[in-house]
């Protein structure tokens, strides 16, 4: 019982660390496109790890399946919404930051 608690706590801590990394990237990166890199990737792995922590804590019940379903849905939907936003910005002509430019 104790081992399960420790393992799930490790997963939760790793997930929240990755979420903090994504947030720092959202604030720190210089333009819209690079910010999408930070959020699109860090949030995907962060929510997978936090949900895995919950799954390990829960054991195998029907709630586990719903949790994995949320995770799998986000794994499909996250890249799709990232792609939609990138295409919208690119089509409307938002300028791309090159190295040495001013922050946008």
């Amino acid at each position, binding site marked *: 019982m104790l081992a399960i608690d420790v393992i799930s706590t490790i997963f*939760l801590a790793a997930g929240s660390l990755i979420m903090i990394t994504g*947030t720092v990237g959202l*604030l720190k990166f210089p333009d819209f496109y690079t910010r999408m890199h930070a*959020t699109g990737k860090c949030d995907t792995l962060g929510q997978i790890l936090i949900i895995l922590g919950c799954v390990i804590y829960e054991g195998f019940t029907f709630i586990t399946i719903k949790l994995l379903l*949320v995770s799998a849905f986000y794994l499909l939907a996250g890249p*799709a*919404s990232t792609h939609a*936003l990138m295409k*919208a910005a690119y089509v409307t002509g938002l300028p791309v930051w090159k190295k040495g430019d001013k922050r946008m």
Partner: protein
Amino acid sequence: MILPFLAVGIIIACTILVCSYRAIYGPGTFNRIVAANVIGTKAIVLLIVVGYIIERPHFIDIALMYAVIAFIGTIIIAKYAERGELCSR
């Protein structure tokens, strides 16, 4: 074993607060849309964690519905920003 969930919930709530800086001050429309998208993602995880804190795992159903609605909302806003109109005749 409620303490780790409480800590994770507080951390995610703080990151949502920090993200709302980008949503309020971020230059241009698209930075604000990204911030709203990220807040939506974090809110899904926060709903699940809150469900464990108050020991009511049926919050997961709400999290599932919120995931679907946030996805559709992001797609609609992106398409609107791309075309400038919602449906073309």
